[in-house]
């Protein structure tokens, strides 16, 4: 998610006609004072985050969804370090929806924008330090001494005369101590956990089948629901013949429901299999009138046409006629195509809701708890505080579980409302997921570059065409300016390459396909375009791809420069000594505050790119858990390669999504991923920045840059159907 501006979100409720939820984004910069009252500084009471149990176990509430990124380990690490807690007894728990768990910067509870560590590092340090201070104060009281004479280690306070007390023994007294307003944080040299390769807390239960994901939830009396969605987005049920479906053993109810757009048919059964079988037997006639039947072929034609002329201006810098001043043979014209992409996290989407009339309970692996809680409340006619919202462990997300319209939670709530008193688990099948929309949008790029006599770009004119993610959502005022949705231009309009004469504009066509942020958002396509064109320029100038980038980057691109240096060093042994049939591919990109440089060793096997090795250099400020970071990058590039898969595209024909499941939309398997990935972190004391999304943009252009050396072809149309 591209929430990269500081600010606070306020939730407001319109009086007329019931609850209307709106999110307003207030800038903190005085120049954009809205006249609205400032949000009070947030208070985070330690007892909402730390629970010291009598048996010595310390449960730490994590204000983020854990969906693979390792935050359920990393944030507790930070807190436990400042607290001097015994790490062997620390448990990380996923916090339910509540004010106190909102992201300190964004004011809503969410995971996105690679912001978990970046926004909560300081917060959790303070929580840990405050908890420690209160424990020490309690011990000092007990021993009639002062705090400065006590020291702490591994969940024990030691007094000046050999006294000691465990945190468990002191917990009750400590909780009665006042929370200190300010607190001393550790000097990095005092860290025992932060900066170390600390193993994940959730490994064992994920390896023995005991960890429960949202889909695994089982409650007494629970029913399972599936929904028949319209084949064209936004269409409506005309009529349903459910006679055969009702005969399936275990089916309880079948009824039409409103969706965020259009209508569908819900099937409620005792278990998933009968629900699914019954849905297959429904005979539904759909009313397809009044909704656009989006078609990929038509969209390409439309997008290509739009891309020939400038759109809304995102950037206009320098001499706008510089392009024409260069002779035609020194110009590059390039057009790029990027298809719709589904996120397809391994755990199919699901939500469980129980509605009791005056309150409700929700269980969901949600990246967007505040927003989802409000949506469920709205559907059920409740206030958000009447909805208890549990955060479940999620099997992946990549952005798919953060949806501004909360459509999955709304579906579940609508069904639960009808089955008052009964918990209902709504399950989306893989087909529902692949065909259900909320894709990374299609994009078309048209780029014209004037190559200067020095081999560097003398002018750069760039037109992007793609649906806006945020127009019409509560986030519009935040990231859409002058008709430009910044989530479509990030990575290009804000490039750190020193291109004096640059023009970037964008067209945002309206298309009847719901779209969503896909891990690294606009960087998914913008980094591909930038890094392949930069590489082409380097090749044309006969300059080493690392050296060329170093020269072209602005001096303030410190992180990219540091990662290129580290990459240079770490690949020196192999990158110019590849065996025959292998080629090197280089790329670098900064997003969400983190700089990444990438080198790959690629050959062609069975007509596909075979990535023997990837080396990554990362600058993310303080590396809170280098093991987590290494994992994120090793694996994140495997996710990023979805873009290159031969069947890595969602296409529509006459309004209907052509792919159904992993047979038609095929993500990377082990054979498609790099065989080995080594990750190197630039040592830094700067504030930590995120690692969730930064691995994704660099890998596809690096691989394609290597392929270009092997085949002489340019790869500008994804997915990579042939090599």
């Amino acid at each position, binding site marked *: 998610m591209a929430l990269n501006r500081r600010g606070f979100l306020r939730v407001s409720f319109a009086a007329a006609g019931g609850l209307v939820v709106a999110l307003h984004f207030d800038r903190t910069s005085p120049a954009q004072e809205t006249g609205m009252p400032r949000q009070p500084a947030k208070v985070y009471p330690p007892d909402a985050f730390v629970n010291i149990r009598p048996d010595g176990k310390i449960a730490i509430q994590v204000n983020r969804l854990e969906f693979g990124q390792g935050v359920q380990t990393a944030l507790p690490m930070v807190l436990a370090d400042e607290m001097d807690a015994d790490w062997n007894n620390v448990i990380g728990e996923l916090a339910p929806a509540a004010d106190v768990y909102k992201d300190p910067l964004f004011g809503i509870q969410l995971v996105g924008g690679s912001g978990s560590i970046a926004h909560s590092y300081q917060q959790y340090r303070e929580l840990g330090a405050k908890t420690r201070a209160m424990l020490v104060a309690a011990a000092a009281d007990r021993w009639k001494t002062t705090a400065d004479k006590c020291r702490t280690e591994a969940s024990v306070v030691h007094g000046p005369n050999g006294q000691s007390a465990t945190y468990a023994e002191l917990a009750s007294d400590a909780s009665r101590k006042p929370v200190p307003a300010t607190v001393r944080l550790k000097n990095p040299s005092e860290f025992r956990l932060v900066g170390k390769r600390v193993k994940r807390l959730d490994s064992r239960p994920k390896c023995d089948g005991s960890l429960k994901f949202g889909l695994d939830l089982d409650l007494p009396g629970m029913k399972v629901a599936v929904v028949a969605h319209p084949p064209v987005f936004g269409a409506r049920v005309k009529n349903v013949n459910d006679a055969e479906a009702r005969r399936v053993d275990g089916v309880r109810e079948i009824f039409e429901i409103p969706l965020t757009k259009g209508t569908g048919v819900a099937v409620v059964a005792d278990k998933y299999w009968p629900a699914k*079988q019954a849905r*297959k037997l429904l005979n539904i006639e759909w009313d397809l009138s009044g909704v656009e039947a989006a078609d990929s072929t038509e969209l390409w034609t439309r997008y290509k046409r739009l891309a020939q002329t400038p759109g809304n201006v995102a950037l206009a810098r320098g001499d706008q006629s510089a392009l024409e001043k260069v002779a035609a043979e020194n110009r590059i014209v390039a057009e790029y195509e990027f298809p719709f992409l589904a996120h397809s996290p391994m755990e199919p989407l699901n939500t469980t809701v129980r509605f009791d009339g005056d309150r409700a309970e929700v269980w969901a692996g949600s990246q967007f708890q505040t927003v989802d809680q409000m949506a469920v409340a709205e559907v059920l006619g409740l206030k958000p505080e009447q909805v208890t919202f549990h955060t479940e462990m999620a099997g992946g997300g990549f952005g798919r579980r953060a949806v501004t319209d909360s459509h999955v939670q709304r579906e579940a709530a609508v069904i639960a409302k009808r089955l008052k008193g009964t918990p209902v688990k709504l399950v989306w099948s893989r087909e529902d997921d692949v065909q259900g929309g909320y894709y990374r949008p299609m994009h078309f790029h048209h780029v014209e570059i004037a190559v200067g006599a020095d081999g560097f770009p003398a002018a750069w004119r760039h037109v992007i065409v793609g649906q806006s993610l945020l127009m019409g959502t509560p986030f519009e005022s935040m990231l859409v300016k002058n008709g430009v949705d910044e989530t479509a231009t990030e990575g290009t309009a804000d490039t750190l390459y020193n291109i004096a004469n640059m023009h970037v504009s964008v067209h945002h066509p309206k298309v009847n396909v719901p779209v969503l942020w896909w891990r690294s958002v606009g960087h998914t396509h913008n980094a591909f375009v930038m890094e392949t064109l930069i590489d082409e320029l380097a090749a044309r100038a006969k300059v080493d791809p690392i050296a060329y980038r170093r020269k072209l980057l602005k001096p303030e691109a410190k992180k990219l420069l540091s990662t290129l240096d580290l990459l240079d060093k770490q690949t020196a042994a192999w990158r110019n000594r590849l065996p025959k049939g292998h080629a090197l591919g280089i790329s670098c990109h900064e997003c969400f505050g983190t700089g990444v440089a990438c080198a790959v060793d690629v050959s062609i096997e069975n007509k596909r790119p075979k990535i023997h090795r990837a080396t990554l250099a990362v600058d993310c400020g303080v590396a809170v858990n280098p093991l987590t970071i290494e994992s994120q990058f090793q694996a994140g590039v495997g996710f990023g390669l979805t873009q290159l898969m031969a069947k890595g595209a969602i296409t529509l024909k006459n309004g209907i999504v052509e792919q159904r499941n*992993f*047979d038609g939309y095929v993500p990377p*398997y082990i*054979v498609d991923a790099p065989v080995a990935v080594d990750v190197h972190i630039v040592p830094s004391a700067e504030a930590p920045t995120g690692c969730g999304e930064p691995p994704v943009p660099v890998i596809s252009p690096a691989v394609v840059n290597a392929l270009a050396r092997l085949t002489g072809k340019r790869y500008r149309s994804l997915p990579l159907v042939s090599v």
Partner: protein
Amino acid sequence: MPGLRVGVLVSAIIVAAALWAHSSNNTAQGVAAFEQVYSVLISPRCINCHTATNYPQQGDDRHRHVANVVRGPEGKGVPGLNCAGCHQETNADSTGVPGGHNWHLAPLEMRWQDINDRPLSSAAVCRQLTDRSRNNNLDGPGLLKHHEEEPLVKWAWDPGRRPDGAARTLPPLTHEQFIAATRRWVEAGTPCPK
């Protein structure tokens, strides 16, 4: 007596000619019968497991089988991805997975397509089928028995339902027609098209 000698010679020639005509008619009929057999062999229900590659095919469009399953050393897949792991003894119609006894790929000696997944010619397939060093040492009657009795062959006419519930398409001949054509071909001496 010269007339009788000529008569015997002429008769012999006429008989020989008749025999030759009969056997080349026989050959033509045998080849025609084989073309019928061939039409079944290259239909999806059969040719999908007679690949030249590391993988089986599936579907009427004969795309590469899902989940990257591979041939393995004996055509039975590899540990973790054995054919029989998913393909049970009988069809599983509720999930759309075909099944039959000892589900596995035909050996590479019995590939009926090239490495670009294009069916081989009827001449090429016929040569393979009649090459005893490649066909498991089967003679004509052996081939007929194979077509009559081998469970995986018979499966092609009882291929179950696809995941979408539709019945899988059948080969262009019935099993009886297939056997009859095989018999005619075998009785003609298993002649091959040129």
